[in-house]
């Protein structure tokens, strides 16, 4: 099961890196979204996989009985999903605003902050 998930994570990473290398903002956004999901799967797998044993304390017991699924990676992933979602939303709006204002989805034409033909520094002093 771990191996299957590891291959899946590898595929997620490959796709997202390919998309992130693109010049188009919208593709980079898709890459970021897929990368986030890949990372979540990675944390999930790194926390060791256990099948169908929820970490719930049975009736009348004081604590969990081994074996049980590790609840911590799930908590980590939940946090990462929420945070990643918030930041992704911001980037989505930012990309759209940039498309409206700068009329550019291609990062190559987005050169306001770093002019393409930057002036040479003065030779004095």
């Amino acid at each position, binding site marked *: 099961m771990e191996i299957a998930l590891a291959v899946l994570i590898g595929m997620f990473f490959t796709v997202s890196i390919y998309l*992130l290398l693109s010049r188009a*903002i919208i593709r*980079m956004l898709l890459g*970021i979204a897929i*990368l*986030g999901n890949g*990372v979540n799967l*990675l*944390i999930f*797998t*790194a*926390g*060791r996989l256990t099948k169908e044993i929820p970490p719930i304390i049975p009736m009348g017991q004081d604590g969990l009985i081994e074996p049980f699924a590790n609840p*911590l*990676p799930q908590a*980590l992933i939940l*946090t*990462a999903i929420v*945070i*990643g979602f*918030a*930041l992704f939303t*911001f*980037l989505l709006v*930012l*990309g759209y*605003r*940039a498309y409206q*204002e*700068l009329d550019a989805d291609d*990062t190559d034409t*987005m*050169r*306001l*902050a*770093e002019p393409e033909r*930057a*002036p*040479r*520094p*003065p030779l*004095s*002093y």
Partner: protein
Amino acid sequence: MAADKTNIVESSELPVAMIDVATSFADWLIILPTVIALMGAALLIMLRFNKAIQAGLAILIVVGIIILEVRLFLNVMEFGTQSMTMGKWLPPFGISFTVDVISIGFALAGAIVTLAVLIYAQADISSREVKYGFHSLVLLLLAGVTGAFMTGDLFNLYVWFEVMLIASFGLIIMGGRKIQLDGAIKYGFLNFLATTFFLISLGLIYGLFGTLNMADISQVSAQAPIGPLTAIGALLLLAFGMKGAAFPVNAWLPASYHTPHPAVSALFGGLLTKVGAYALLRSLLLIMPSARDFLDPVITFLAIATLILAPLGALAQTNLRRAIGFLLIGGVGSVLVGLGVPTIRGVAGASIYIFHSMLTISALYLMAGLIERIMGTQDTRKMGGLYSASSWLSILFLVLVFAVAGLPPFLGFWPKLLLIEASLSQGDVWLVVALVLNSLLTTIAGTRLWAHIFWRSGPVGENSEQENKKLKPLTLREKYLCVTPTTILVLFIVFFGLKPAMIFDAGRMAAYGLLDNSEYIEVTGLADPTKEKVE
């Protein structure tokens, strides 16, 4: 193992994984600066339509935080590293805040910079931006930075990084000019990517160690297999290097830091990259030193490349704030030198350098804001003649240039001296060459800026000996609100440069804390008792 934790849970009948004593005031002090900043940010959002009290309240909150942090700093200097754990669970299950000298020193410097920026910003931002929550975003950023410096848990560090990131997103686009959108795209994507790399390494750390508490990992990382450990270390180096704008992954910084308001630039330059540099020191020196040893040649190479290429970038710039951005990147190279020579001197040098860089770079950006205000442009080719208009500003700028280049007697000299001594003692001659070359190139770049802005009488081609008529003199309000905080930051730099004893003490303690993990582990209550008995 479990029974040994009773020294923390005194006379407890609960399971020993729980804390049942009330948190003492000394422990509250550890978390209060972060909590107050967060609550303050929330309060200011609720009061966002009441524009008149926003600034006063924000400044009051930051002053309160500074007072608490001074108290905490004195506590840490006197009694050593302190730790508290939240939510009744003992570490490594509960999240610890562990404060040593390096944490509280940087947090204090960050709060001071924030205060200076808040005062400066009163003349810099419009009332519309106040309504959009400028002050609460600044406090949120401070909360993220303070939390990142103080936390003792790696996942918690990730959360603080994201708090910082979302606040900085809000600040960098405040104003909504086209150039800001352009800068924000580059800043946003690359920084989000850096924190995602950090998250990947967190997943791997959890897989390898089964814990995310820094003290807990530090205890066992030496026994971990070197292969996975080095992979994690390299990933952390990439993630934090990207956050701190080290050499091959620094492109986002000069692309974005000159786009927002100067006050926001100063805040970012003083706080954000420093958190990346701090996280590098914390993770590779305290948590997994064996990964650092394996990566040593890489770190040395990155340090040399960053040190030499960054001031060359500054030399080639005609945009004032972009040039300062490159000077900022050069400073990250000095921190990498400290990481490359992990002796007491080297690490103390890197820690003091971060402290120095927080104050100096912020002051430089504030200064750049003042210069742009008077000149009406960011382009150094169109500047000139400021010396006769304001000699005070020209003195401040020259002091800052010397400080950032590491010339005595200012604060920047001492960490560079320590770093050079450490590199010599380790036989890393190339690091010494790079450090000296960096100082030389930074001096050239900085004094060229000074000559162009202040010394010559006008823009290129202007040969008249008369005063530059196009300058817009500062109003009285601007003088009070903008020049005063800049001057105070510069005075700090001069003062600590002339009286470096206290800084040296703190730096040495910080280095001991990072290189010897026993105290850090002990205060979190995770120390292995069998080991203590041997000692």
